[in-house]
């Protein structure tokens, strides 16, 4: 289960949902859309390999960014340094997947940037580049719920802070949840989402629509057989 599947459990074409869930290999997608966001997260992670404040020196980006991507990257890097200034932290390595044995699923994919402060407090940073407005409560966003579930063991701690930052607009939303209490709600939410996905992929009927524009499985799709 990826964050994308959980987010689109109700709306995604059931055939695509089924194919994505089973990891079916489709046509190649463009990866450029995620290039700037991935570069920012990766450079922030490197910035904090040792306990450090954010420093623009670590945000060199890639020589292969297009000029417009470079503008977006530089502005995002400047906002990262400004929004998290004077907060020395160390990045924490996490596995790429987390098993949720009770539901029999693996949660797979990025889970933000987990960091620790010098006094041991734990902070999950989720970095965005524009898009939908930041939620007033970070837990309203699927990506946050997913990241917290992925990191549940690590976040089971006295001092936890969750920060969602939009590095295109320079905005942040911060929550300091009670991890143990919030976990039950999140488990319930995950169970509901997983049940929904399993129900929908029982009959993976295809449906033509705007979503087909970025579906990698259209080549063999019954909805387009007559084309």
């Amino acid at each position, binding site marked *: 289960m990826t964050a994308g599947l959980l987010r689109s459990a109700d709306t995604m074409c059931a055939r695509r949902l089924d194919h994505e869930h089973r990891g079916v290999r489709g*046509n*190649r*997608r*463009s*990866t*450029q*859309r995620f*290039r*700037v966001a991935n570069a920012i997260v990766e450079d922030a992670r490197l910035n904090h390999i040792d306990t450090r404040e954010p420093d623009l020196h670590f945000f060199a980006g890639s020589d*292969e*960014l*297009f*000029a*417009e*991507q470079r*503008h*977006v990257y530089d*502005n995002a890097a*400047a*906002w990262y*340094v*400004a*929004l998290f*200034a004077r907060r020395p932290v160390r990045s924490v390595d996490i596995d790429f997947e987390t098993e949720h044995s009770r539901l029999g699923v693996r949660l797979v994919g990025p889970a933000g940037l987990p960091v620790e402060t010098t006094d041991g407090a734990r902070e999950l940073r989720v970095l965005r*580049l*524009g*898009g939908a407005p930041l939620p007033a409560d970070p837990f309203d966003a699927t990506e946050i719920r997913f990241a917290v579930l992925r990191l549940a063991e690590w976040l089971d701690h006295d001092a936890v802070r969750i920060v969602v930052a939009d590095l*295109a*607009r*320079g905005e942040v939303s911060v929550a300091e949840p009670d991890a143990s209490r919030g976990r039950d709600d999140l488990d319930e939410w995950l169970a509901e989402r997983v049940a929904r996905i399993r129900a929908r992929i029982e009959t993976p009927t295809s449906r*033509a*629509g*705007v*979503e*087909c*524009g*970025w*579906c*990698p499985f*259209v*080549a063999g*799709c019954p*909805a*387009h057989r*007559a*084309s």
Partner: protein
Amino acid sequence: MSPRDTLLADIVALSPSSLERWNRCRREYRSRDLLGLPESNPGPPADMGNLVHSLLRMIHEQGTCRDDAFVTDVLARHGVDGVGPVSGFIARHRVRCPADASRSRHELELARFHRAPAPMFMATGRLDAVWIHDGLLDVRDYKTGGSFFERVADDPRARLQAWLAAPIAARNALGVRVRYEHLAAEIDDDPDPFEPDADELDTIGEELRMVVAQIRAEPTFAGAADTAVCARCRYRGVCPDSATPAEPAWPTPPDEC
């Protein structure tokens, strides 16, 4: 793999908006449709247009635009009074609305896959309204802004809409018509509707295939560098080719940071 190699998916997607951007400026198309970048210089919000589209959908899904009391009630429920510009848009639609339609749909999503000959592509679109009447599948595009074409047939976006709707029309033994409803008070006449026959629909399919072939072969995605185009571009603040360069309008951190 070079950045150029990962720019395009195996199957290129085309929509009326992306096709318009491609025709206007290769660089703008790349920034928006391939790179998905946030706009450096956003245009004015489309709040009014979105509200009018949404109200027209609700009015026709729940009743009819010819029922004055019902329309007034729908507008009131959305905080719109009966004499303002929004009610004017609705009133101007009413005189264009097909009275004898047997069926209609609003916000209809369509997708049509072109498989062969190469290159493959996927065309998608969301049609504002579709009516069935007089042997026609009548596609309506509500316009709340300016008018730029005297004939709908000259607008590539409309040609794509017609091509998208053609299989549904064919299955129902209907002809296709695309009509623009210009609902702004200052525009007197709608452009001539577009009613392509089977040959013209084939021609459109070939036009779209050639566009996708050009996209796949495009080596540089150079900007249009045209004052009229660049002055309205939402990426002019980050485009090195802009004829009207500007500072990005997005927020920047304070200097002391």
